[in-house]
């Protein structure tokens, strides 16, 4: 069949047979907004955005489902269509947590917070990991009127974390159907579909079981195609938009799949298949494992040599020199291992070395359960003077039997403690080299990112050694093996996934694999923390708003001394981060203290995952200088402003001031009505409560800034507590001549007693420690820009910490 012509918006467009109107328009550079449409997936027609008018066709058909035809006359952009699209977008956004759209401060806020807040639940764009790449946002921005004119329907579905690798937040889902269509496209029979109907319709596996119990292969295609962030890669989601995507080869199993890796700041943060063809589908390791392995904290970064009994970092030439010395001295009594999954170039080098020094060469593959029995016996009998082991194939007792042990690896292991030389190398993705295709052909793998620290390609190291020893590596050319007999493809069935790579248990670096039944190494298991049974009992815990918990803890010694405005350091476990939280209520007699806790990262999520009756490892306080109540005169007027956790934090101050006869007005803000809490509590301790929401869903549209602008001058005192952006806005809006305006700062804190200095802030040009000098400081004097910057100091570590398992299981 040949091409044909149709007219779109007055332009004659040439189209290929089989094209839809949408595709024909796109090929001619005519943009029609769409969300559910996808060039490689079956037409679906659910989002209803790509509606067009076609002469002779009734109504407004969707261009994604209508085949283009010869002579068709199509209009894509009439007023009627624009109106229809806008209304549809409004309906769509009304079922998606979208208050940020109608917020006047959105642009400023997003400049201030260039990364979304890493909250447990995405309650708005500002706490959504998908913000940088959200297609819904992009389409909506282009067709959006500020006021969606409809109430938000936010049903607070729990984020489902019952599966490895994938977080499922159906609050964000717009049911575009891309996920199950891509699943069908890649795997034939989809593992997921829509369950229930109408407003209860949601993406689900059969009978809403965990996907791991179902056909799902965790190829991640659904996550990659999700336009909204409803399905996300638990580990990679907070890194933001990748700088680039490169292609490399995954060498974890002998299949050597091509994989597209997403690179951000020079690191591989995510991976996906190179196409949606079935043969290109990745297994869970390829899709989700690679970045976690590459960025593991167990990566071996430094080249080390034993000097005077201690392993110390050394330079490259020194290592090579010592390497050759050892080989020469132990000639004929050397054990060398070759990993059949390694680069062709490295394997040639290993073979050349083994030949040159008369070594015993042991070939190992991924599924090798360590060294063979004979070799183990030989080691135990002391047959080897030296050994060059690539990967982790020795246990510590065997390692100690080899006088001169050289270990090359990409991860740290316990047996490296017994080595004389430890050589870090970079692996696939970080090194260019050659692998075997499934048919045994040579295929080139590019380096997507650079090696880190002392890591370098093993092949490079070996060829240098060989050159020094006068060995011609070229002579050791060999024919590469194809797939081993009986190879089972992990992309076809998750049970086929290899448990190890280079001798390492993959679950050591990719903990979610344990949910799929893959073992971690015994030494990792032992290192896990024993349950902490001391600590502080949680007497009550309730969710007051999405991401916000009210936690009441038994802490009698502390409850005796708390004063309004003080905080305490909480830790869920003995090895948790120390995080400060404002004390919002206490009872000295009953011996409890109460906190409002916002889930914004791993540590707060850990506490958020605890239940009534569980124990917090550490509750240390009261800390900080209480608010100076004497500065508020009886009969004077005070305005207390609270946003996010600040809504809770102003409560004890409001109560104390009201008790002293101060006329208290509380003003609180939230992005939308469903994020408000504590209204009744605040009403009970103040004369007036003003509510503002950023989307106008409750109270007037706006924030605390607007309250200050309108009536700030009517008050003798102002106290603002909330996120840095909110307090900064308050500082800008407060009357410039305000005599008594305070804010409570929330920098990163460690000890909370003025020793570490992590919480330093600049106030009126002076350096202060928020933990002891604060948290209260004059609102107008704080350097908020510096505070904002300092709070992001550990961004990368915080991202890395986020997806780890909490409390022995995934946090929820």
């Amino acid at each position, binding site marked *: 069949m040949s091409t044909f012509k149709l007219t779109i918006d007055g332009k004659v467009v040439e189209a290929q047979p089989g094209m839809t109107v949408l595709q024909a328009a796109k090929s001619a550079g005519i943009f029609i907004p769409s969300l559910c449409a996808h060039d490689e997936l079956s037409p679906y027609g659910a989002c209803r955005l790509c509606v067009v008018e076609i002469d002779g066709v009734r109504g407004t058909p969707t261009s994604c489902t209508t085949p283009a035809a010869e002579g068709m006359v199509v209009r894509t952009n009439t007023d009627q269509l624009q109106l229809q699209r806008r209304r549809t977008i409004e309906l769509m956004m009304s079922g998606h947590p979208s208050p940020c759209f109608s917020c006047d401060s959105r642009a400023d806020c997003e400049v201030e917070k260039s990364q979304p807040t890493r909250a447990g639940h995405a309650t708005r764009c500002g706490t959504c990991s998908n913000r940088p790449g959200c297609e819904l946002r992009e389409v909506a921005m282009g067709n959006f009127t500020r006021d969606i004119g409809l109430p938000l329907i936010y049903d607070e579905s729990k984020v489902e974390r019952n599966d490895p690798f994938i977080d499922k937040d159906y609050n964000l889902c717009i049911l575009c159907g891309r996920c199950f269509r891509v699943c069908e496209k890649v795997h034939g029979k989809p593992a997921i579909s829509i369950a229930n109907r*109408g407003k209860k319709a949601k993406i689900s596996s059969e009978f809403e079981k965990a996907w791991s119990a179902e056909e799902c292969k965790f190829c991640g295609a659904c996550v990659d195609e999700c336009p909204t962030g409803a399905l996300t890669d638990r580990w990679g989601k907070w890194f933001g938009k990748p700088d680039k995507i490169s292609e490399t080869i995954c060498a974890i199993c002998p299949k050597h799949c091509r994989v597209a890796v997403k690179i951000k700041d020079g690191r591989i943060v995510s991976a996906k298949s190179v196409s949606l063809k079935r043969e290109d589908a990745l297994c869970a390791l390829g899709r989700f494992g690679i970045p976690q392995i590459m960025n593991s904290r167990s990566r071996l970064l430094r080249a080390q040599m034993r000097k005077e009994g201690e392993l110390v970092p050394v330079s490259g030439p020194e290592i090579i020199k010592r390497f050759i010395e050892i080989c020469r001295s132990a000639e004929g009594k050397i054990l060398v291992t070759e990993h059949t999954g390694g680069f062709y170039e490295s394997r040639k080098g290993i073979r050349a070395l083994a030949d040159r020094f008369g070594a015993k060469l042991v070939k190992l593959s991924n599924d090798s359960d360590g060294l063979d029995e004979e070799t183990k016996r030989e080691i135990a009998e002391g047959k080897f003077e030296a050994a060059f082991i690539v990967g982790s194939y020795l246990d510590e007792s065997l390692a100690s039997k080899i006088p001169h042990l050289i270990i090359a690896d990409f991860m740290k292991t316990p047996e490296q403690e017994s080595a004389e030389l430890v050589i870090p190398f970079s692996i696939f993705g970080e090194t260019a080299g050659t692998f075997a295709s499934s048919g045994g052909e040579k295929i080139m793998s590019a380096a997507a990112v650079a090696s880190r620290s002392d890591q370098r390609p093993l092949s490079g190291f070996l060829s240098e050694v060989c050159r020094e020893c006068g060995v011609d590596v070229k002579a050791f050319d060999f024919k590469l093996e194809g797939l081993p007999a009986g190879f089972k493809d992990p992309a076809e069935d998750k049970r086929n996934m290899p448990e190890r790579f280079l001798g390492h248990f993959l679950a050591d670096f990719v903990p979610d694999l344990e949910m799929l039944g893959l073992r971690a190494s015994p030494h990792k298991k032992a290192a896990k923390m024993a349950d902490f049974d001391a600590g502080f009992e949680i007497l009550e815990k309730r969710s007051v708003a999405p991401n916000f918990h009210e936690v009441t803890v038994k802490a009698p010694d502390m409850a005796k001394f708390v004063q309004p405005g003080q905080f305490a350091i909480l830790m869920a476990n003995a090895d948790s981060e120390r995080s400060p939280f404002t004390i919002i209520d206490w009872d000295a007699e009953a011996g409890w203290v109460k906190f409002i806790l916002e889930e914004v990262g791993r540590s707060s999520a850990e506490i958020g995952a605890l239940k009534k009756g569980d124990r917090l490892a550490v509750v240390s306080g009261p800390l900080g200088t209480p608010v100076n109540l004497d500065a508020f005169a009886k009969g004077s007027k005070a305005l207390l402003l609270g946003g996010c956790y600040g809504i809770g934090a102003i409560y004890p101050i409001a109560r104390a001031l009201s008790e002293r006869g101060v006329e208290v007005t509380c003003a609180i803000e939230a992005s939308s009505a469903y994020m408000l809490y504590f209204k009744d509590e605040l009403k009970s301790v103040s004369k007036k409560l003003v509510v503002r929401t950023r989307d106008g869903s409750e109270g007037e549209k706006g924030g605390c800034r607007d309250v200050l602008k309108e009536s700030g001058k009517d008050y003798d005192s102002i106290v603002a507590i909330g996120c840095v952006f909110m307090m900064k806005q308050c500082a800008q809006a407060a009357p410039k001549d305000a005599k008594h305006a305070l804010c409570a700062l929330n920098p990163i804190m460690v000890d909370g007693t003025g020793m570490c200095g992590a919480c330093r802030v600049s106030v009126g040009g002076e350096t202060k420690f928020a933990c002891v000098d604060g948290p209260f400081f004059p609102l107008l004097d704080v350097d908020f820009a510096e505070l904002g910057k300092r709070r992001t100091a550990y961004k990368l570590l915080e991202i890395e910490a986020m997806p780890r398992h909490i409390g022995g299981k995934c946090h929820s």
Partner: protein
Amino acid sequence: MEILKSQRESAQKAWDDFSDAGKARVLVGAATCGRAAGALDVMEEFKKELSAAGLSDKVEVVETACIGLCYAEPLVEIRAAGIPPVLYSNVHPKDVSELVKSHIMAGKAVVGKAEAVMVESPYEGIVPFKKHPMMELQKRIVLRNCGVINPSSFEHYLARGGYKGLERAFSMTPEDVIEEMKKSGLRGRGGAGFPTGMKWGFARASKSDEKYIICNADEGDPGAFMDRSVLEGDPHSVIEGLMIAGYAIGAQHAYIYVRSEYPLAIERLRTAIKQAEEAGLLKRKLENGFEFEIKIKKGSGAFVCGEETSLMASIEGVRAMPRPKPPFPANSGLFKKPTNINNVETLAAVSSIMRDGAESYAALGSEKSKGTKTFSLAGKIVRTGLIEVELGIKLGDIINKIGGGCPDGKKFKAVQTGGPSGGCLTSQHFDLPVDYENLGAVGSIVGSGGMVVMNEDSCMVEVAKYFVNFTENESCGKCVPCRMGTQHVHMILEKITSGKGELEDIERLKKIAFTMKQSSLCGLGQTAPNPILTTLRYFEDEYMAHIKEKRCPALVCPGLVTFRVDAEKCTGCTLCERACPTGAISGGPKKPHVIDGEKCISCGACFQTCKFGAISRE
């Protein structure tokens, strides 16, 4: 057809015997509606009484189906020698003894229980069936056999001209059959009213080695039971229609998609299909080479399955969600093969049209809406039931003449036609000819034929909310306008009925309705706003009363109604006190009761329970 020739003879004999009015027989209408009213108990009682009277072998007790007078169920026709057959209504088991003794044994009609006499002239003051107010204006083509024959009898169907339509079709080319359908003017009776002949033509023109024909029996509109009655009362008329359609389009396979909530219909269909197979009509090559099989597929209660593409998805075993058209089913339908879908009533009409010829059918009805249409009358109407009338009949004639208007002297307020996709019409439309064009012009639809009548006690905002709640729950959730739109309009109507409505809500409703109508994927979403739009159009004053005056004129909406006890009328019986769920009523025995406005949630429980009319609403 050769194979039917010999069968027709014995069939005629069986029918002659069955329809012999002089032969003692008790015919109990035992379709689902009759059974719900207690028909099976009545039948048992007849058997018992007859056996006690020693008449068991002389008087046959037969199960028939629904004749349409649902308000009068259980209905029993009694035939006996020397007395014209009489149709008795509202028969209770306790009435049976008298009926047996008087009518059968003494040959004297029980006038007090009689609904009609089944002969032309009146008898003992009993009106002849054909002159019965509910029957007089009817024209029964689709319902020709319903309640008349024993639906489990292939012979009865055959004797009454059954499969003659098929024989006539076989004497023509498929193209001529399609032409005949076009001439008849028959339009799809499932709701959309698409010309049946044209639809068949598309499927005929589609080239394929395999084609399907589907009978859509997924009747789901609240208050609609036309298809059920036909399947229960005359299953062969549908099977014959399917075969004619299959022959015309060149299909080999048929599915009847029937909701599993219709167990009796499924049972009757199974029996009928088996009979047709045994008669040699199905599952074997006929003399003209036509070979056809019919399968039943049970639906599982999703309203959206009535939409043809969802229905096909459901048969294929995947989630029932509408698929975009094109491709149209005629080109790529069930299992991606050319498929034609017709509704039960359409197919039942087809068999009659093919037998009697297109002309006589086309002579009925209005200019663009030919023939007859069945309607189910439900709600606040004296004679509820199933009727078949010529299209073009005046709405007022259906409501008042056939249906008898509203009971208990209450004032008619509205009639909802076409189910959740239809609209509410008022008495100003009584002169409106009921057909596709005219109902469409006033914002409603003929739909599948449901008519729910409402009287002055119905709040039209509440009614709109009811239908929207229905579509909200039945929306499959696939497309945005329907999934989100139904939720929003329901929320707004909830707001209005609870007295929190604002004037802007009317605009909001219209705005969302526009988006749903314009942008929804399938008919469910596109028509879901109709109940709102028509009530807004004809009953805007009721919306305004709710919004502006915080008043529900029909005194229905909780929160907008205050209940008071009239101390004069109150006898202190304490019934209301006990019925009140919030303990808002106090008083004690024999003392006038008082309702505490603070505690009262206006649920109306007291109003319902009071036997003395002592509780007033305002």
